């Protein structure tokens, strides 16, 4: 909690302090102010059309009968509403089943990612056994390997797990477990642990805390902010993933929304299909609106690796 305090104070600073390219002197010149404001309004309109437009269109199409959408796709107001489409998406398409599949896949992937990243980060940053540098190097090295290299061998691995000969294909484990092998998470968490004050660890050790206690009662509670960031990104990544779940979950009943929706396209009416698309979009948008600050700051974070 205290960690985020300074940034909040900074945000409340009066706007006069945050100056940019256009200075106050510039701002007082009428022609410049007029131009800048026009550009801003035009940008806002453009962003509304481009960013919000397609989503609003989808929302409208979700409650418009097929014929209306086909005949006048760009009509601002539909001729007839068909709210039953939204219920049909559940009764006929059983979208809730695929939605729950997505949720399960996301929850499992998240647990796997958090478990691997926190334990590995703790071992590599705090416990530091011999060979830490080598191990961390091996984790870093996988960052250089694009995921496409893994596609085929990973598929064969899932088909027939080495040594134990278990077939993970068509089970959620085939998505959960590979999701855990995220070098990015391990690196982020390890760097965060590196910056935790060592004095706390020493104090806890003197008080008799073993490595498990230290991990559970000291390190994890201190790393709540970074765990939040990693969690949100883990859930989003699962929500977006398409190729891998499509390959390893061939049975429709096991498929998440992202895999099921493209196959639905051919099987059902356009209006019902668009209603299903709209419902599939609701959850991530709701998540975005709730965690907006984390998204927008995290998006900057992924580029500003300097910090």
């Amino acid at each position, binding site marked *: 909690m205290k960690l985020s305090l300074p940034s909040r104070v900074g945000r409340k600073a009066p706007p006069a302090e*945050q100056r940019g*390219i*256009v200075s106050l*002197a510039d701002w007082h010149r009428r022609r*410049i102010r007029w131009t*800048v404001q026009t550009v*801003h309004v035009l940008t*806002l309109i453009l*962003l509304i059309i481009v*960013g*919000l437009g*397609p*989503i609003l269109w989808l929302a409208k199409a979700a409650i418009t009968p097929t014929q209306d959408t086909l005949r*006048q*796709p760009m009509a601002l107001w539909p001729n007839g509403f068909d709210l039953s489409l939204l219920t049909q998406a559940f009764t006929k398409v059983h979208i809730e089943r695929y939605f729950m599949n997505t949720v399960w896949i996301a929850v499992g992937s998240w647990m796997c990612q958090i478990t*691997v990243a926190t*334990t*590995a980060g*703790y*071992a590599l940053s705090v416990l530091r*056994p011999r060979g830490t540098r080598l*191990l961390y190097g*091996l984790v870093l090295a*996988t*960052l*250089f*390997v694009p995921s*496409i*290299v*893994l596609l*085929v*061998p990973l*598929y*064969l*691995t899932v088909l027939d797990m*080495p040594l134990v000969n278990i077939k993970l294909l068509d089970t959620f484990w085939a998505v959960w*477990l*590979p999701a*855990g092998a995220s*070098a990015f998470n*391990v690196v982020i968490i390890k760097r965060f642990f590196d910056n935790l004050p060592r004095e706390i660890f020493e104090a806890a050790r003197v008080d008799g805390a073993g*490595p498990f206690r230290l991990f559970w009662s000291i390190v994890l509670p201190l790393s709540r902010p970074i765990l939040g960031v990693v969690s949100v990104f883990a859930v989003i990544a699962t929500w977006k993933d*398409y*190729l891998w779940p499509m*390959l390893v979950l061939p049975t429709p009943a096991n498929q998440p*929304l*992202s*895999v099921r929706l*493209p196959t639905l396209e051919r099987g059902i009416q356009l209006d019902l299909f668009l209603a299903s698309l709209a419902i599939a*979009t609701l959850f991530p*948008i709701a998540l975005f609106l709730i965690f*907006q600050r984390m998204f927008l*700051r995290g*998006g*900057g*974070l*992924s*580029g500003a*690796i*300097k910090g």
Partner: protein
Amino acid sequence: MSSRAEPAVAASGVRKRRGPLTWVSRDGLSTLAFLLPLLLIFGIFSWFPILRSFVMSVQETNLVSTPTFVGLDNFANVLGDPLFGTAVANTAYFALLALIFGYPMPLVLAVIMSETRRFRSLYSALAYLPVVVPPVVAVLLWKVFYKGGSNGAFNSILGVVGLGPVQWLGDAAMAMPSIVVEATWAAFGGTVIIYLAALLSVPPELYDAAEVDGASILQKIRYVTLPHLRGILFITLILQLIATAQVFTEPFLLTEGGPGNATTTVLLLIYQYAFGSSLGGHFGEAAALSLMLAAFLGVFTAVYFWLTRSWSTTS
């Protein structure tokens, strides 16, 4: 607990003897327990498959018989495949178009947005909204927009000004640009947010100094803002190239590589080698092509890491 007694032990010179018992008593077991998830998950699902892809690339692998060593045949087969050239050219074309459509625009947007005094979060939220839409939903939605008839969504807009109808996805010349427009829509918000964060970190004194020298707004952008963003611009360029070289979902769902292989990208070809209905089962060729792509991308990735690394140590 045992570690408290350790200094005394070390001082008496017994420390050199590192038997398994000392290892256990010095929390070796619990360290191993903490490393176990990493070793297991990365071992089985990352390190082993990476090694395996090298092995597979020199093997004839199908799921029925035992793999046989075939040397560099897989690589030769891929390079000799007429589709290989098509796929590389298509991917390069995609990357080029994505650069033209999608590289300067987020920067312009971010510069404008950084100057907004009010509603800045509204601007960023609007720009980021398409990123939030799941890629598959975005692709399928745009597929509806791109419908070819005169009453397709985009064609009906064109119809108002007397143009069209355009076969957005059915025409070999239009298909790739259409895919790139969709992909740009889906991704530009993320880049805008990255630039915005970088823009807000430009030290205000630099602008003050430029004003003392009598710089106009455009000159301030040219001589203060852009030089300050040079690093991040280069990073996003490399990230975009890495991402576009691996484009899959958009062409796979919008056109399935068609019409007439006009949108078959390298990843689509890999997919076809391994899992396609006609080619399928050529795991060796798929692994060989994956490795070639990885080697090519490795150069970009290495530059990327070298750059971000040198910055994180200097600043």
